[in-house]
């Protein structure tokens, strides 16, 4: 059963290092550095807990990114089902042993860190489905029996996450899965059916929503509905970004965040803080870096020979894009506040870990671009 080792699989370490995509590496590094400055600012211009912890995480997970990239893509292919199942088990574990914070049960206490398995599920689902669609032929993709497994693999974790409750992450997970299916060639009509089904189930789903979640949706539709309550975040975020102007208020001078007008400035609203302090040019720079990262991931997908690699890279690029777009759309008042971190920038270990693993696998696709996975 074992294939003979190809030339690339026996690459020396040096060759591996040479074959890394340095544009991607530096983009990530720059983003990481920027996020550290932003974190320093959220700490009130002092080198305190959030900054330290964010630096440490970035350091650890950036290293992890390299480690992941040096593993053969075949390894990731093989391990993907196991990876998905493990994360799924962790999600189940969260249901029973999870830590509850501000009304939702999302974390597992691993003693050295609090792990949020739903973040890892974002990558795991893409990986799992990429493998699944790699293994079946294009003709089989649209057979009903082959639709069954992907649907279950998508719905099961999404349901677990949505009941934590964590609407934002569950949507992001679902989008990742849907994107793989779409790229694999699932017909448009299935998506149409699914959408119709989804919309018709909406009222029922809404009845299951927590009052605060309902309020968020209503508030998004009209932020002035309750300016001091649920609309407060959107309004204050828009004020912060808008008041940044062209050049921003200057590093450590973001009055909105300093004076605590910005909610969750470490996590979901980190872009707001940066935007306020560095203005339009700062925001556009961030946007460009993200665009570059996404572009590079797509490029890697283009040069990867295996369907698995392509599916994974494209899907991950799209998912990454969605995370960025949802977060920015949210803080810019274009989308409801759902609780979606900005990849790499936001404070949060699990999110950072998931992104670094995801990017590492992309990089592994680059390094082993010509290696068939099976």
């Amino acid at each position, binding site marked *: 059963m074992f294939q003979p080792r190809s030339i690339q699989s026996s690459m020396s370490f040096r060759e591996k290092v040479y074959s890394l995509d340095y544009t991607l590496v530096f983009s990530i590094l720059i983003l990481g550095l920027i996020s550290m400055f932003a974190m320093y600012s959220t700490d009130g211009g002092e080198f305190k807990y959030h900054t330290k912890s964010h630096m440490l995480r970035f350091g650890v997970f950036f290293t992890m990114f390299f480690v992941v990239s040096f593993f053969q893509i075949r390894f990731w292919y093989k391990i993907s089902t196991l990876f998905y199942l493990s994360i799924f088990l962790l999600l189940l574990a969260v249901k029973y042993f999870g830590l509850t914070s501000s009304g939702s049960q999302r974390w597992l206490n691993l003693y050295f860190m609090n792990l949020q398995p739903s973040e890892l599920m974002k990558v795991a689902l893409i990986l799992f489905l990429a493998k699944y669609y790699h293994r079946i032929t294009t003709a089989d993709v649209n057979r009903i029996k082959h639709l069954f497994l992907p649907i279950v693999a998508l719905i099961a974790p999404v349901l677990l996450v949505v009941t934590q409750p964590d609407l934002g992450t569950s949507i992001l997970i679902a989008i990742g899965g849907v994107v793989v299916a779409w790229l694999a060639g699932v017909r448009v009509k299935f998506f149409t059916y699914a959408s119709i089904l989804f919309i018709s189930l909406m009222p029922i789903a809404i009845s299951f929503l927590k009052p605060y979640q309902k309020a968020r949706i209503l508030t998004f539709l009209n932020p002035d509905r309750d300016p001091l309550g649920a609309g407060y975040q959107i309004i204050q975020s828009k004020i912060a970004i808008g008041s940044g102007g062209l050049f921003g208020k200057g590093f450590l001078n973001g009055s909105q965040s300093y004076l*605590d007008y910005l909610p969750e400035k470490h996590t979901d609203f980190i872009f707001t803080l940066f935007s306020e302090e560095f203005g339009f040019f700062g925001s556009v720079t961030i946007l460009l870096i993200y665009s570059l990262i996404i572009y590079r991931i797509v490029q890697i997908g283009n040069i990867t020979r295996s369907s698995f690699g392509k599916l994974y890279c494209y899907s991950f690029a799209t998912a990454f894009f969605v995370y960025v777009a949802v977060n920015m759309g949210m803080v810019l008042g274009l989308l409801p506040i759902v609780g979606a971190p900005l990849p790499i920038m936001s404070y949060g270990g699990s999110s950072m870990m998931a992104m670094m693993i995801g990017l590492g696998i992309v990089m592994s696709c680059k390094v082993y671009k010509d290696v068939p996975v099976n």
Partner: protein
Amino acid sequence: MINNIGSGNTIIKSKLISRRMFILSTAKAIVFFGIFGRLVSLQINEATKYKTLSDKNRFREWKIAPQRGLIKDYFDQEIASNKKVFQLHITPENSPDLEKLFFRLKTILNLTDKRIAFLKRKITKQKPWEPIIVSDNLTWSEFSRINLFLHELQGVEPIVSVARVYPNNSSSAHIVGYVSEVSAKDLEKKEYLRDMAVTGISVGKTGLEHKLDKSIIGKVGFQRYEVNAFGKRIKQIQIDKGKAGTDYRTTIDLEVQKFTTGLLEDKAAAVCVMDIYNGDIVSMVSSPNYDPNAFVHGVKKDYWKELIGNDLKPLNNKVISGLYPPGSTLKTIVALSALENDVWNPKRYLNCNGVTELYGEKFHCWKKKGHGNVNMRTAIQRSCDVYFYEVARLLGVDRLSETAKKFGLGKTVLDGFIEERSGVVPNTSWKKKFIGKNWYLGETLHSGIGQGYYQSTPLQLCLMTAQLANGGFELKPRLLVNEEKNNLREFIKYKNDNPNDPLPLDMLVSNFNLKPLFRNQENINFVKDAMYAATNEAGGTSYRSRLLDKKFMFAGKTGSSQIKRFTAEQRELEVKQKDLNYKDRDHALFVAFAPVKDPQYAISVVVEHGGTGSSAAAPLAKKIIKKVLERHELRRSYQFSLGKEI
């Protein structure tokens, strides 16, 4: 099977994936472009709007109540000043639990439930960061108790502030008036107050405090703070301390004021002393008085009830709002009017036998036996009513009213005192207009002795006397020191320096900007001489109150204004005033000027229900005149010491 996937399938798959990826990439580009557009719109197009909103978030202003200007007496002693007070403010949004806070404060400060309910209502009406005053004048022990418990009283701010205080309590209460909290009515009436909505600002309610309010209140300052989302002050950005109000120096002599207040104790009385050359009001006392300090922090109910319930009307400034028939004091004007209008020869004798008759109605002289043969001078000296009935009959009420109005009766004479009343100078058209009836000749006779419809304030009587005493020139009474050149004094000086230089009237008007109230000054001098006789010659009505010292010698005219007509019976029994009920007794009046030689001051005294002018009013005037004249040199030299020309 898995291993045998043909390369053909892989290529198809790749193509499919790439095609679909292309669609996704396009979508991504569009979305990122949308985000870019949103950034442009927020950070470039609408940046100004959001900057303003951000500043609105950041900054909050707290207004600072300005310090009121001081009111001083002529000698720069403070009549109204400011003192430190300890206050307790609550900023509602800083308090996590207002209910609990009030409960705690209730025990610490002994707040009543009513007060708490009032404060709670107030909180609901204003912005959550605007402080409300729980107590604006804490004692030191209350203040220190609050400070002791401060750690558990979140939202409470003990504040050291400044508030109005009237250091000499009551003697000048009526002149200065008082300040109190701004009411809705004040806001309606005084436009300048509307943008001065500052916690703790007080507004002048009466007297000078009211009249000068606009300039004495000062300019509101503000503190601009950067605040965080919870309203906590982070740092002070800007401070404008505002501007204290203008200080004012009044013409009042506090020393005389206190002296007079002492004299009038327990009486319902009014005294006004005026400089006859510039209209400076040296003293203006209304008795009884009240404590203006009681109003600054909201008047206590008991005290208010006491003031309102008092029959002697302590809140009333009788000098400007008390209306009394001028009585015999008006005889000076009646005589002057008759002389000016050439209807009477002052040397004409008339026999007074105590009563005269007109169309069957009897008109009595106050002296039952009558004065016998009197001319105009003795008629004024002894205040013969019968003589003046005849003078008035010939003069007619209309001509009399003209002279009376010229000399300041029947109109308000001060500027901007809401409580001042104008009084009444009746004439035929007045009666027609206000009473709707024709004038009767008998009423002319009553007017001739200052009774009937005549109503005047003590200030008007003082002004009348002052204008007689200064030789018949118009005065504008004033309470605030005015450094302007005094033309009247200059004129007198000129006249003294050039005794033989005749000054025609028009020259007086053009050179000294004076307004003579007479046609022939001799007539004024005649009245002054008659007043001299009334005080300083035997038989005069105020002879017993005269001062012998040339320096203090004064000339005055008594008056008693009847409240209730004497019945024939009472007249027969010669009922004395002091035997009547208090309420039925006559008001005692006295007007005078002093010193006789080179007059300087005019005075009017009214004692409500005091009986006769000679027994109740003149003795008081005597003491006050002495006091005022004793301080005359001091007053003159104080002005010189300040280096100012008179």
